[in-house]
């Protein structure tokens, strides 16, 4: 079996072709090969969520994805989500609520939070809390994050109703 695999995938809208080491998880690939340092690792064993990125439309743990397996996949990171403006309101709410302190968890938290906006636009505070469980934040105590997501859900509902 091969220890280097040729893959072509789409990262933040750009096609990327690489020959990758099978030992590489998606986050190390993004950070080391592509210089996309917005994705972080906090444990590399699937618990902290700092590595959450979007893969084929779904949030996943980047540290539990083998990049060699990603031929043909579509990956979006915080850099891409920032560039497209898809979560600008969410980012602004995070700033306004001080939902990021050290910011290390923030990119992963935003990818998870963005999922709430799509998956459960009617989410209650409890449901927001439940959904972001699995993304550790050691600084904020979570409340500001819940507030920020709640603000955006409300604002989006209002603007949709209008």
């Amino acid at each position: 079996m091969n220890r280097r695999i040729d893959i072509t995938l789409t990262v933040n809208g750009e096609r990327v072709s690489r020959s990758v080491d099978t030992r590489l998880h998606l986050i190390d690939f993004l950070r080391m090969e592509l210089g996309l340092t917005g994705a972080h690792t906090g444990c590399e064993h699937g618990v902290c969520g700092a590595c959450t990125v979007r893969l084929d439309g779904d949030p996943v743990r980047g540290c539990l994805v083998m990049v060699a397996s990603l031929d043909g996949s579509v990956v979006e990171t915080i850099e891409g989500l920032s560039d497209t403006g898809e979560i600008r309101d969410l980012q602004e709410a995070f700033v306004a609520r001080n939902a990021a302190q050290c910011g290390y968890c923030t990119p992963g938290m935003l990818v998870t939070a963005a999922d709430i906006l799509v998956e459960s636009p009617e989410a209650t505070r409890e449901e927001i809390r439940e959904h972001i469980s699995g993304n550790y934040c050691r600084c904020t105590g979570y409340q500001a994050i819940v507030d920020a997501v709640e603000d955006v859900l409300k604002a989006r509902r209002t603007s949709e109703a209008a």
Partner: protein
Amino acid sequence: MNEIVTPKSLGLSREDLPNSYIGRSVPRPNARKLVEGRATYTDDVTLPRLVHAAFLRSPHAHARIVSVDPAAALAVPGVVRVFTGADLAKVCDPWVAVLAHLKGMKSAPQYPLPLERATWQGEAVVAVVAESRAAAEDGVAALAVAFEPLPAQVDMETALAPGAVVIHPELGDNLVFTRTAETGDVAAAFAAAHRIVEATFHTGRHTGVTLEPRSIIADYNRADGTLTVHHSTQAPHMMQNVFATQLRMAEGDVRVICKDVGGSYGIKVHVYPDEMAVACMSKIMGRPVKFIADRFEAFGSDIHARDHRIKGRLAVDAEGRFLAFDIDDLTGIGPYSVYPRTSAVEGNQVVNLCGGPYAFANYRCTTTVVLQNKSPTCQYRAVGHPIATTVTEGLVDLAAEALGMDKVAIRRKNLIRDDAYPCTSPAGMRFEGLSHHASLDKLLAMVPVEKIRADQLEQRQRGIYRGLGLASFIELTNPSPFMYGIGGAKISAQDGCTVRMDPDGSLVALSGVTEQGQGTEAILAQIVAHGVGVPVSKVKVVTGDTQTTPYGGGTWACRGAGIGGEAALQSAIALKEQILEVAGAMLQAQGSSLDIIMGEVVDKATGQVRMPLAELGRIVYYRGDTLPKDLARELVQTRHFITKEYPFAFTNGIQASWLEVDVETGMVKLLEHWCVEDCGRVINPMLVDEQVRGGIVQGIGGALYEHCIYNEDGQLLTTTLADYLVPMAAEMPDMHVGHVETPTKESLLGAKGAGEAGTAGAPAAIMNAINDALSPLGARVLAQPFTPDRILRALGTIA
């Protein structure tokens, strides 16, 4: 409020002007990069010829290192070099972590990598440097290291007993430090007491779990003899001194750069042997070496904290007045005191802080700090405070129950009166001004106590057990040299700030305090904008570079706002005066008749705009020929600040926890949490609230979840994030934060620290709430974390 900070007395713009930022919830200017993934943490930095380090760590709690055979490791593709303790000792002197003012304190010399013995499981023993971290780990796996396991001293309770394993024979025993504070006549007070309550408390050993693990890149450049260290640290200048001293270099040849830091909470303010090893290896190899701890390494080598057993007694009279506290604290700190802050400070803080919020006359508290073969412990957020608060508030609730007194009433009766300051506590702490009663009033205005009590009764009928717990606390902030400096540690208690105006009228502030997410840079920008009179967006703040920022202590012990902020305010005020002097010369007006508002020089009396700062800058920097010859032109000022009157600026507060105990499963559900705290002048209410909330959740972690569990052989069992439980969002309550402001008069700004208040009080509030919930069932828990197992045992459900 301090008189001094009124706009009038300061000559500042009026508080309601747009650039009056002190006291306003301005969003952090540097938050944007965080939410867009554009921050720069240490691991984001790469350098040419960078190599990566990994460590073989001791699998034993205590073992002799018999031999190290690097041959197989060196044969691994990508491995560059292998280093042992002896290799590194050639370029690095060992350190001994004692403080002279902690009398009698002793510890053993510590090297980057041990020479003969490993003394805790997880201690780095051999280093492998390779082209990638993965290759370095392969090298570690291939190393042949022979250990001879030795008996380990794991239990702190037996560390001083006959037959204990003396971890460093040259020290004679395992006693690191002991201190007793005694005031009044404790024995007589207990003899005369109406009631005596007593209990033994445990705070579980836990750790910081910064989401960004410890990270360092050391880059020694042989060409010019300089060492540049990119470091995830709270104290760049302290580390500069440590690297220089231990590696026998001139301090000026060492530069520590610290960009974004992914959480610190005290974890990143210590000297870690593996990080020193990285600096040594870079010095030897003449190329940059990176080390990013992984999570397993973090659990086994980040400092742990709060491994205490505390016996406490409280004597009360018939009216419920406190007569005496008598406390005996024991703590195990691992095999070495941690450099340079030492591992005796936490126990010492317990002695300083027990009983702190209350007025009473007789006090005895002893701490005994012992060695053991577990990870070293040292200062972690709210050092000693949660321990002291747990004991104090636990005893207060016991006393209330013994007397049949209401838990609010007993506090009301004993809290130091708000008009009693300045005063000195029985433990010898000098309080400038606290607000326990005002804080309690505010708390009672926020917590619907009657509704809660009614609900509690009603739920009990249905077999649902809810409890309300209170915890008053004091917090030590703005430390002076009395904390470390007088003990001989090169830890700066002063801090400086340089503020300059550039040609376009924008300001740059360079500060010795650092940012790890608290919002330091934001409040510095607010203070400088306020002080000079510009929009906050016109201020750029630079921190975390020993070569460019004024010398300072960094951010720890809640000193960023109080010390760094004051230095910034004073330099901003000085710069403003200077700008107005230049403006006066240009406008042929008295500087004192002018003001600066939103970046424009205005006529003070009329508010009429006279000149934008950009115009002033243009003339000063490019057309200096048009100005009077003798006019001073440097639009830059530096001020340093140190507190002088009080060793520490104490803050105070009170917390309340409302929770439900599932008495069948032993699970605790947090319903709501409140905190009122008084950190003096609040510079940015939102940031303070968020510090408090984050701190509360770390306190909750210690109270309910977090525990470094060891087996009898000294093997750490909680080495992954799946085993060591950190609070997650679903279980956390909404937290309400209120403020009372008693500014310190030591500074213009009047700010004290706020970062540790949440952590200081939360565990005690939760303990008291659980015990309140369990009280009809006659159960009580005193050992943290309050796990389902412990609660069910207390209930007698399981034996």
